[in-house]
Protein backbone atom coordinates (compact mmCIF):
# COMPACT_ATOMS: atom_id res chain seq x y z
CA UNK A 1 0.00 0.00 0.00
CA UNK A 2 1.22 3.47 -0.54
CA UNK A 3 2.42 5.48 2.39
CA UNK A 4 0.24 8.49 1.67
CA UNK A 5 -2.92 6.74 2.76
CA UNK A 6 -2.07 7.05 6.43
CA UNK A 7 -2.38 10.81 6.28
CA UNK A 8 -5.58 12.66 6.77
CA UNK A 9 -5.57 14.92 3.76
CA UNK A 10 -7.23 18.25 4.17
CA UNK A 11 -8.55 20.12 1.17
CA UNK A 12 -6.76 23.17 2.52
CA UNK A 13 -3.55 21.41 1.66
CA UNK A 14 -4.52 21.61 -2.00
CA UNK A 15 -4.33 24.68 -4.12
CA UNK A 16 -7.55 23.68 -5.88
CA UNK A 17 -9.43 20.85 -7.54
CA UNK A 18 -6.70 20.23 -10.13
CA UNK A 19 -4.19 19.86 -7.34
CA UNK A 20 -6.41 17.34 -5.58
CA UNK A 21 -6.94 15.39 -8.81
CA UNK A 22 -3.22 15.20 -9.47
CA UNK A 23 -2.72 13.95 -5.95
CA UNK A 24 -5.29 11.19 -6.45
CA UNK A 25 -3.82 10.24 -9.83
CA UNK A 26 -0.42 9.82 -8.24
CA UNK A 27 -1.78 8.01 -5.24
CA UNK A 28 -3.68 5.50 -7.36
CA UNK A 29 -0.78 5.22 -9.84
CA UNK A 30 -3.06 6.20 -12.67
CA UNK A 31 -1.82 6.91 -16.19
CA UNK A 32 -2.76 10.52 -16.74
CA UNK A 33 -3.42 9.87 -20.45
CA UNK A 34 -5.88 7.11 -19.69
CA UNK A 35 -7.77 8.08 -16.58
CA UNK A 36 -10.34 5.54 -15.34
CA UNK A 37 -12.96 8.22 -14.93
CA UNK A 38 -15.31 6.19 -12.71
CA UNK A 39 -12.55 5.43 -10.20
CA UNK A 40 -11.21 8.95 -10.09
CA UNK A 41 -14.70 10.44 -9.68
CA UNK A 42 -15.40 8.10 -6.81
CA UNK A 43 -12.12 8.96 -5.11
CA UNK A 44 -12.61 12.65 -5.67
CA UNK A 45 -16.11 12.65 -4.17
CA UNK A 46 -14.88 10.58 -1.26
CA UNK A 47 -12.38 13.29 -0.49
CA UNK A 48 -14.95 16.03 -0.67
CA UNK A 49 -17.17 14.13 1.75
CA UNK A 50 -14.34 13.69 4.20
CA UNK A 51 -14.12 17.40 4.60
CA UNK A 52 -16.08 18.70 7.52
CA UNK A 53 -15.85 22.29 6.61
CA UNK A 54 -14.40 23.90 3.55
CA UNK A 55 -14.08 27.50 2.71
CA UNK A 56 -17.26 28.38 0.82
CA UNK A 57 -15.59 30.08 -2.11
CA UNK A 58 -13.25 27.22 -2.62
CA UNK A 59 -16.01 24.67 -2.12
CA UNK A 60 -17.65 26.01 -5.25
CA UNK A 61 -14.48 25.37 -7.22
CA UNK A 62 -14.19 21.83 -5.90
CA UNK A 63 -17.86 21.16 -6.64
CA UNK A 64 -17.53 22.51 -10.15
CA UNK A 65 -14.81 19.97 -10.80
CA UNK A 66 -17.02 17.21 -9.35
CA UNK A 67 -19.72 18.22 -11.83
CA UNK A 68 -17.21 18.10 -14.68
CA UNK A 69 -16.06 14.62 -13.65
CA UNK A 70 -19.62 13.34 -13.49
CA UNK A 71 -20.36 14.89 -16.84
CA UNK A 72 -17.34 13.21 -18.44
CA UNK A 73 -18.32 9.91 -16.84
CA UNK A 74 -21.82 10.11 -18.29
CA UNK A 75 -20.40 10.90 -21.74
CA UNK A 76 -18.15 7.88 -21.51
CA UNK A 77 -21.20 5.74 -20.88
CA UNK A 78 -22.92 6.87 -24.05
CA UNK A 79 -23.02 4.34 -26.87
CA UNK A 80 -19.84 4.65 -28.95
CA UNK A 81 -21.58 5.54 -32.23
CA UNK A 82 -22.86 8.78 -30.69
CA UNK A 83 -19.35 10.12 -30.16
CA UNK A 84 -17.21 11.12 -33.10
CA UNK A 85 -14.08 9.03 -33.38
CA UNK A 86 -10.84 10.29 -31.82
CA UNK A 87 -12.76 12.56 -29.53
CA UNK A 88 -12.22 11.41 -26.01
CA UNK A 89 -14.46 13.25 -23.53
CA UNK A 90 -11.58 13.14 -21.06
CA UNK A 91 -9.26 15.11 -23.30
CA UNK A 92 -10.26 18.55 -21.97
CA UNK A 93 -9.49 17.45 -18.45
CA UNK A 94 -6.25 15.69 -19.41
CA UNK A 95 -4.98 18.83 -21.16
CA UNK A 96 -5.72 20.95 -18.13
CA UNK A 97 -4.08 18.45 -15.81
CA UNK A 98 -0.96 18.30 -17.96
CA UNK A 99 -0.68 22.08 -18.06
CA UNK A 100 -1.22 22.34 -14.36
CA UNK A 101 1.22 19.55 -13.63
CA UNK A 102 3.91 21.49 -15.46
CA UNK A 103 3.19 24.58 -13.42
CA UNK A 104 3.45 22.55 -10.22
CA UNK A 105 6.73 21.02 -11.29
CA UNK A 106 8.12 24.43 -12.19
CA UNK A 107 7.00 25.62 -8.75
CA UNK A 108 9.03 22.96 -7.03
CA UNK A 109 12.13 23.93 -9.01
CA UNK A 110 11.55 27.61 -8.29
CA UNK A 111 11.01 26.84 -4.62
CA UNK A 112 14.45 25.25 -4.59
CA UNK A 113 15.96 28.32 -6.20
CA UNK A 114 14.18 30.52 -3.69
CA UNK A 115 15.65 28.42 -0.89
CA UNK A 116 19.15 28.97 -2.29
CA UNK A 117 18.53 32.66 -2.74
CA UNK A 118 17.38 33.02 0.85
CA UNK A 119 20.88 32.29 2.00
CA UNK A 120 22.35 35.01 -0.12
CA UNK A 121 21.89 38.46 1.28
CA UNK A 122 21.82 41.66 -0.64
CA UNK A 123 21.77 45.11 0.76
CA UNK A 124 18.49 46.95 0.91
CA UNK A 125 20.13 50.32 1.37
CA UNK A 126 23.60 51.67 0.94
CA UNK A 127 25.98 52.92 3.61
CA UNK A 128 27.07 56.55 3.09
CA UNK A 129 29.20 56.84 0.00
CA UNK A 130 32.75 58.08 0.21
CA UNK A 131 31.98 60.98 -2.06
CA UNK A 132 33.56 64.32 -1.30
CA UNK A 133 31.70 67.42 -0.19
CA UNK A 134 30.80 68.73 -3.62
CA UNK A 135 28.08 66.21 -4.22
CA UNK A 136 24.77 67.92 -4.15
CA UNK A 137 22.31 65.15 -3.87
CA UNK A 138 23.60 62.59 -1.45
CA UNK A 139 24.77 65.16 1.08
CA UNK A 140 21.86 67.14 2.37
CA UNK A 141 22.05 70.90 2.59
CA UNK A 142 20.79 72.91 5.52
CA UNK A 143 17.92 73.97 3.36
CA UNK A 144 16.90 70.36 2.70
CA UNK A 145 17.16 69.69 6.36
CA UNK A 146 15.02 72.68 7.29
CA UNK A 147 12.50 71.86 4.63
CA UNK A 148 12.17 68.26 5.75
CA UNK A 149 11.84 69.46 9.29
CA UNK A 150 9.12 71.96 8.51
CA UNK A 151 7.13 69.36 6.63
CA UNK A 152 7.37 67.12 9.60
CA UNK A 153 6.45 69.90 12.00
CA UNK A 154 3.33 70.66 10.04
CA UNK A 155 2.27 67.11 10.70
CA UNK A 156 3.32 67.20 14.33
CA UNK A 157 1.54 70.48 14.88
CA UNK A 158 -1.70 68.83 13.93
CA UNK A 159 -1.13 66.07 16.43
CA UNK A 160 0.14 68.17 19.30
CA UNK A 161 -1.97 71.26 19.08
CA UNK A 162 -4.11 70.50 22.13
CA UNK A 163 -1.42 70.17 24.74
CA UNK A 164 1.91 71.88 24.95
CA UNK A 165 4.10 70.71 27.73
CA UNK A 166 5.52 73.31 30.10
CA UNK A 167 8.92 71.63 30.40
CA UNK A 168 11.91 73.72 29.35
CA UNK A 169 14.80 72.43 27.31
CA UNK A 170 18.25 73.88 27.39
CA UNK A 171 20.25 73.91 24.19
CA UNK A 172 23.32 72.66 25.98
CA UNK A 173 21.62 69.70 27.64
CA UNK A 174 19.98 68.70 24.37
CA UNK A 175 23.27 68.89 22.51
CA UNK A 176 24.88 66.59 25.07
CA UNK A 177 21.97 64.21 24.77
CA UNK A 178 22.28 64.10 20.98
CA UNK A 179 26.02 63.52 21.06
CA UNK A 180 25.55 60.76 23.61
CA UNK A 181 22.95 59.23 21.34
CA UNK A 182 25.35 59.40 18.41
CA UNK A 183 28.20 57.85 20.40
CA UNK A 184 25.98 55.02 21.37
CA UNK A 185 24.09 54.41 18.17
CA UNK A 186 26.69 55.48 15.62
CA UNK A 187 24.06 57.29 13.63
CA UNK A 188 20.81 59.04 14.10
CA UNK A 189 17.84 58.72 11.85
CA UNK A 190 16.54 62.22 11.31
CA UNK A 191 12.86 61.44 11.05
CA UNK A 192 12.84 58.82 13.78
CA UNK A 193 14.68 61.02 16.21
CA UNK A 194 12.42 64.02 15.77
CA UNK A 195 9.35 61.88 15.93
CA UNK A 196 10.44 60.71 19.36
CA UNK A 197 10.48 64.24 20.75
CA UNK A 198 7.69 64.80 23.16
CA UNK A 199 6.63 68.28 22.24
CA UNK A 200 6.98 70.76 19.46
CA UNK A 201 9.24 72.86 21.65
CA UNK A 202 11.58 70.00 22.38
CA UNK A 203 11.73 69.14 18.70
CA UNK A 204 12.64 72.74 17.86
CA UNK A 205 15.46 72.73 20.42
CA UNK A 206 16.78 69.46 18.98
CA UNK A 207 16.64 70.87 15.52
CA UNK A 208 18.69 73.96 16.42
CA UNK A 209 21.21 71.73 18.19
CA UNK A 210 21.58 69.70 15.05
CA UNK A 211 22.09 72.78 12.90
CA UNK A 212 24.73 73.98 15.32
CA UNK A 213 26.52 70.61 15.31
CA UNK A 214 26.56 70.59 11.52
CA UNK A 215 27.85 74.15 11.39
CA UNK A 216 30.80 73.42 13.67
CA UNK A 217 31.39 70.20 11.67
CA UNK A 218 31.01 67.80 14.55
CA UNK A 219 28.39 65.84 12.72
CA UNK A 220 27.62 65.20 9.12
CA UNK A 221 24.17 64.77 7.65
CA UNK A 222 23.81 62.42 4.73
CA UNK A 223 21.03 61.10 2.66
CA UNK A 224 21.76 57.58 1.46
CA UNK A 225 19.97 58.21 -1.72
CA UNK A 226 17.41 60.64 -2.88
CA UNK A 227 14.14 60.44 -0.94
CA UNK A 228 15.57 58.21 1.74
CA UNK A 229 15.58 59.34 5.31
CA UNK A 230 18.42 61.59 6.40
CA UNK A 231 21.04 60.06 8.65
CA UNK A 232 23.29 62.02 10.94
CA UNK A 233 26.76 60.69 11.69
CA UNK A 234 29.59 61.85 13.90
CA UNK A 235 32.41 63.09 11.72
CA UNK A 236 35.28 60.62 11.64
CA UNK A 237 37.88 63.00 13.07
CA UNK A 238 35.69 63.96 15.99
CA UNK A 239 34.86 60.46 17.15
Amino acid at each position, binding site marked *: MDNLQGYQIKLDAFQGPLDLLLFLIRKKKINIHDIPIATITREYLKHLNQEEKINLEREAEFLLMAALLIHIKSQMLLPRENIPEEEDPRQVLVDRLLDYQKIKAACSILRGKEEEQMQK*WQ*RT*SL*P*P*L*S*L*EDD*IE*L*TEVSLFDLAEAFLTLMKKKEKENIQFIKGKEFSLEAKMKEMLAYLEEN*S*FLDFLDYFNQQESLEEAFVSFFCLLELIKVKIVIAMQE*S*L*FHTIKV*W*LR*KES*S
Partner: protein
Amino acid sequence: MKIHPKHIIESLIFISLEPLSLDKIKSVLTEFSDKEIEGAMKDLLENYTSNEKGIQIIQAAGGYLFSTNPEHDLWIKRLLKFERKYRLSSAGLEILSTIAYHQPITLAEISALRGVDSIHSLKTLLQKKLVKIVGRKKSPGKPLIYRTTDKFLAYFELDSIKDLPSQEEILKILEEEKNLD
Protein backbone atom coordinates in the same frame (compact mmCIF):
# COMPACT_ATOMS: atom_id res chain seq x y z
CA MET B 1 35.77 23.08 3.62
CA LYS B 2 36.45 25.12 6.70
CA ILE B 3 34.80 28.49 6.82
CA HIS B 4 37.32 31.20 7.55
CA PRO B 5 36.22 33.92 10.01
CA LYS B 6 37.83 36.49 7.73
CA HIS B 7 35.23 35.82 5.08
CA ILE B 8 32.36 35.82 7.51
CA ILE B 9 33.50 39.21 8.79
CA GLU B 10 33.63 40.44 5.21
CA SER B 11 30.02 39.31 4.71
CA LEU B 12 28.91 40.93 7.93
CA ILE B 13 30.50 44.29 7.16
CA PHE B 14 28.95 44.15 3.70
CA ILE B 15 25.43 43.51 4.92
CA SER B 16 25.49 45.76 7.99
CA LEU B 17 23.43 48.92 7.71
CA GLU B 18 25.80 50.85 9.96
CA PRO B 19 29.52 50.79 10.70
CA LEU B 20 30.12 47.42 12.33
CA SER B 21 32.15 47.43 15.54
CA LEU B 22 34.61 44.72 16.50
CA ASP B 23 32.56 44.03 19.63
CA LYS B 24 29.48 43.40 17.54
CA ILE B 25 31.45 41.08 15.26
CA LYS B 26 32.67 39.15 18.29
CA SER B 27 29.16 38.84 19.65
CA VAL B 28 28.01 37.31 16.36
CA LEU B 29 30.96 34.98 15.75
CA THR B 30 30.56 33.04 18.96
CA GLU B 31 32.28 30.02 17.39
CA PHE B 32 35.59 31.84 17.27
CA SER B 33 37.84 33.19 19.99
CA ASP B 34 38.46 36.92 20.35
CA LYS B 35 42.03 36.35 19.28
CA GLU B 36 40.99 34.50 16.13
CA ILE B 37 38.57 37.26 15.26
CA GLU B 38 41.09 40.03 15.84
CA GLY B 39 43.61 38.18 13.70
CA ALA B 40 41.05 37.64 10.95
CA MET B 41 40.05 41.30 11.06
CA LYS B 42 43.66 42.39 10.70
CA ASP B 43 44.12 39.95 7.85
CA LEU B 44 41.02 41.22 6.09
CA LEU B 45 42.04 44.86 6.39
CA GLU B 46 45.47 44.02 5.00
CA ASN B 47 43.87 42.24 2.03
CA TYR B 48 41.91 45.33 1.28
CA THR B 49 44.76 47.78 1.63
CA SER B 50 47.47 45.76 -0.10
CA ASN B 51 45.49 44.86 -3.19
CA GLU B 52 44.25 47.54 -5.42
CA LYS B 53 40.48 47.30 -5.40
CA GLY B 54 37.36 49.15 -6.32
CA ILE B 55 35.98 48.83 -2.85
CA GLN B 56 37.66 49.35 0.49
CA ILE B 57 36.93 48.83 4.14
CA ILE B 58 37.11 52.04 6.11
CA GLN B 59 36.92 52.72 9.79
CA ALA B 60 34.29 55.22 10.90
CA ALA B 61 32.07 55.89 13.86
CA GLY B 62 33.74 53.16 15.89
CA GLY B 63 33.22 50.45 13.32
CA TYR B 64 34.04 49.16 9.88
CA LEU B 65 32.19 49.76 6.68
CA PHE B 66 32.68 49.24 3.00
CA SER B 67 33.16 52.23 0.84
CA THR B 68 34.03 52.79 -2.77
CA ASN B 69 37.41 54.06 -3.87
CA PRO B 70 37.20 57.89 -3.86
CA GLU B 71 39.02 57.91 -7.20
CA HIS B 72 35.90 56.44 -8.75
CA ASP B 73 33.58 59.22 -7.60
CA LEU B 74 33.27 60.58 -11.10
CA TRP B 75 31.76 57.38 -12.46
CA ILE B 76 29.68 56.73 -9.40
CA LYS B 77 28.11 60.15 -9.72
CA ARG B 78 27.41 59.46 -13.37
CA LEU B 79 25.70 56.19 -12.51
CA LEU B 80 23.67 57.77 -9.73
CA LYS B 81 22.54 60.54 -12.02
CA PHE B 82 21.52 57.94 -14.53
CA GLU B 83 19.62 55.94 -11.92
CA ARG B 84 17.93 58.99 -10.49
CA LYS B 85 16.21 59.63 -13.75
CA TYR B 86 14.23 56.48 -13.25
CA ARG B 87 13.25 56.98 -9.66
CA LEU B 88 10.19 58.75 -8.40
CA SER B 89 9.63 59.93 -4.86
CA SER B 90 6.47 58.87 -3.09
CA ALA B 91 5.16 62.42 -3.35
CA GLY B 92 6.02 62.49 -7.04
CA LEU B 93 4.20 59.25 -7.57
CA GLU B 94 1.17 60.52 -5.70
CA ILE B 95 0.97 63.65 -7.84
CA LEU B 96 1.56 61.71 -11.00
CA SER B 97 -1.29 59.38 -10.17
CA THR B 98 -3.53 62.32 -9.31
CA ILE B 99 -2.80 63.86 -12.71
CA ALA B 100 -3.13 60.56 -14.53
CA TYR B 101 -6.57 59.85 -13.14
CA HIS B 102 -7.94 63.38 -13.09
CA GLN B 103 -6.40 65.00 -16.15
CA PRO B 104 -6.69 67.69 -17.34
CA ILE B 105 -6.09 69.18 -13.89
CA THR B 106 -4.74 72.36 -12.29
CA LEU B 107 -2.17 72.64 -9.51
CA ALA B 108 -4.79 73.91 -7.08
CA GLU B 109 -6.94 70.88 -7.83
CA ILE B 110 -3.99 68.52 -7.30
CA SER B 111 -3.10 70.17 -4.00
CA ALA B 112 -6.72 70.05 -2.87
CA LEU B 113 -6.99 66.36 -3.69
CA ARG B 114 -3.79 65.49 -1.85
CA GLY B 115 -4.29 67.92 1.02
CA VAL B 116 -0.71 69.06 0.43
CA ASP B 117 0.86 71.81 -1.61
CA SER B 118 2.27 69.99 -4.62
CA ILE B 119 4.29 72.54 -6.57
CA HIS B 120 7.71 71.15 -5.68
CA SER B 121 7.21 67.60 -6.86
CA LEU B 122 5.26 68.85 -9.84
CA LYS B 123 8.39 70.67 -11.01
CA THR B 124 10.36 67.45 -10.84
CA LEU B 125 7.73 65.66 -12.86
CA LEU B 126 7.82 68.43 -15.47
CA GLN B 127 11.62 68.16 -15.63
CA LYS B 128 11.36 64.42 -16.07
CA LYS B 129 8.84 65.13 -18.83
CA LEU B 130 6.31 62.78 -17.28
CA VAL B 131 3.73 65.58 -17.22
CA LYS B 132 3.25 68.64 -19.39
CA ILE B 133 1.41 71.94 -19.38
CA VAL B 134 -1.37 71.88 -21.97
CA GLY B 135 -2.86 75.36 -21.59
CA ARG B 136 -4.90 77.40 -19.16
CA LYS B 137 -8.22 76.75 -17.57
CA LYS B 138 -11.01 79.18 -18.47
CA SER B 139 -11.71 80.08 -14.88
CA PRO B 140 -10.75 82.96 -12.58
CA GLY B 141 -6.98 83.37 -12.43
CA LYS B 142 -6.63 81.21 -15.56
CA PRO B 143 -4.51 78.54 -13.87
CA LEU B 144 -2.25 76.25 -15.91
CA ILE B 145 -3.57 72.80 -16.65
CA TYR B 146 -1.52 69.61 -16.69
CA ARG B 147 -1.62 66.27 -18.45
CA THR B 148 0.57 63.20 -18.54
CA THR B 149 2.90 62.76 -21.53
CA ASP B 150 3.81 60.01 -23.96
CA LYS B 151 6.91 59.49 -21.87
CA PHE B 152 4.61 58.74 -18.96
CA LEU B 153 2.93 56.04 -21.02
CA ALA B 154 6.30 54.60 -22.03
CA TYR B 155 7.50 54.65 -18.43
CA PHE B 156 4.55 52.55 -17.35
CA GLU B 157 4.47 50.51 -20.57
CA LEU B 158 0.96 51.63 -21.45
CA ASP B 159 -0.46 51.94 -24.95
CA SER B 160 -2.90 54.65 -24.03
CA ILE B 161 -4.20 56.43 -20.97
CA LYS B 162 -7.31 54.28 -21.23
CA ASP B 163 -5.18 51.28 -20.29
CA LEU B 164 -4.60 52.59 -16.78
CA PRO B 165 -6.07 50.15 -14.30
CA SER B 166 -9.40 51.48 -13.12
CA GLN B 167 -9.98 52.35 -9.48
CA GLU B 168 -12.35 49.39 -9.22
CA GLU B 169 -9.83 46.93 -10.61
CA ILE B 170 -7.14 48.03 -8.21
CA LEU B 171 -9.53 48.11 -5.27
CA LYS B 172 -10.53 44.56 -6.04
CA ILE B 173 -6.92 43.39 -6.00
CA LEU B 174 -6.25 45.30 -2.80
CA GLU B 175 -9.28 43.94 -1.05
CA GLU B 176 -8.91 40.35 -2.08
CA GLU B 177 -5.74 39.59 -0.20
CA LYS B 178 -6.36 36.53 1.89
CA ASN B 179 -4.14 34.02 3.52
CA LEU B 180 -4.86 30.76 1.87
CA ASP B 181 -1.81 28.95 3.13
